[in-house]
């Protein structure tokens, strides 16, 4: 009997998304070149291995996919043409789409705040808006203030403001703002 989180279709679903993993022969070149492997719970080669083994729940809940920086080193170097970085993205998207708990909510919430900021901002990103949305999410800003961990961020923001690099005015609303909002309707 396979373990209960075994999903025979995982490798097939990845292949359908253009992310076939079955050519992996575990050379570990991806993991050896990965700059963030020190912060991961599964090195990239094991992500691919577990994908082949159908261990969907383990993968959707792992830290690795969230601390991956999408640097594309693994994808560039894989001798078998496996798009490892693409697999990481696919797993992130699935975890969020299925509403699963993730071990790095900060990373997830920053991405969400970014997409919402583009959608509500009229098609371009306002940097202060994404920071505000991210900070407000889950009372993160308040928690940080209480720990006074926000001091550094405030100091950097003030330095940028002093150098006229913080544009507080919202970006121009695009003629195509509606098109962009439709593309980002989920956020």
């Amino acid at each position, binding site marked *: 009997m396979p373990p209960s989180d075994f999903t025979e279709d995982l490798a097939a679903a990845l292949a359908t998304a253009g992310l076939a993993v079955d050519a992996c022969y575990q050379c570990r070149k991806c993991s050896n070149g990965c700059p963030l492997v020190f912060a991961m719970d599964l090195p990239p080669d094991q992500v691919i291995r577990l994908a082949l083994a159908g261990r969907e729940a383990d993968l959707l809940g792992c830290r690795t996919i969230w601390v991956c920086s999408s640097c594309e080193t693994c994808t560039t170097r894989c001798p078998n043409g496996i798009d490892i*970085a693409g697999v990481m993205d696919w797993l992130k998207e699935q975890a969020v789409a299925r509403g699963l708990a993730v071990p790095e909510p*900060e990373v997830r919430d920053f991405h969400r705040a970014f*997409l919402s900021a583009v959608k509500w901002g009229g098609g371009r990103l306002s940097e202060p808006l994404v920071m505000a949305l991210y900070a407000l999410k889950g009372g993160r800003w308040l928690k940080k203030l209480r720990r006074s961990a926000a001091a550094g961020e405030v100091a950097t923001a003030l330095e940028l403001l002093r150098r006229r690099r913080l544009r507080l005015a919202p970006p121009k609303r695009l003629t195509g703002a509606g098109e962009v909002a439709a593309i980002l309707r989920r956020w």
Partner: protein
Amino acid sequence: MKLSYYPGCSLEGTASDYAASIAGVAELLGLTLAELPDWNCCGASAAHSLDEQAARALPLRNLRLAQRIGLDVVAPCALCFNRLKAGAKALAARGEAVTLRVWDLLDLLTQPAFLRLITHRLVRPLTGLQAVCYYGCLVNRPPAITDAASPENPGNMEKLLAVLGATPLDWSFKTDCCGAGLAVARPDLIDRLVRRLYDRALRAGAECLVVSCQMCQANLDLPQARISRQAGQAYDLPILYFTELIALALGHPEVPQWLARHLVDPRPLLTAKGLL
């Protein structure tokens, strides 16, 4: 020469110094950068992490706008460039005609014709400036998207620096990731990656790092004071845009104003070298 220009969102905000230096260099080199009308955000890491469909659709809209104009399009940001290239590949894969070329700004300005022009216009060679070139990730990787000829060891920025009279130093970290995408959510991770870049740059003998992307610039410049505090070691490594160095060597009068907007002030170093 005239191209469509896709500046990307941060050049309207925190990277206004980069935007100004690009406008300055374009003027010096007789390059007309016509901003793509009504361009939208490319979605960056957020879209390709959480919404593959949006990650395809957002750059496609920009690409369609550019195709309507018909000129090649140039992007000064590694991620914007990467997303536009991915869009162009996706269109071609669907059998749609892609009638334009997507350029990374550094690649464009290091084409032989521009290097010759820069050589002719040089008024202040950057003699004695010891620099390492830092390319970051997405201008070159993955080559299936970027078409980079040498993704592990690019050399166009070194070639440019040599033309400008500076001394580009060799090092093994020119395409290592600085983690910029995690800068807000996990600053502890980027501190480790960025500190290693500082250490390796110093070990190579560098007095500054030169970049071609505003995300790399921000990620190496903004946290330098914090990283210094944590490390108990005062790093003082200016992070310069390649466009600032071109403008400096070609005698653009506004360079000091752009440099003043960096957090690690490059002016003392450049003054000590007799370049400001």
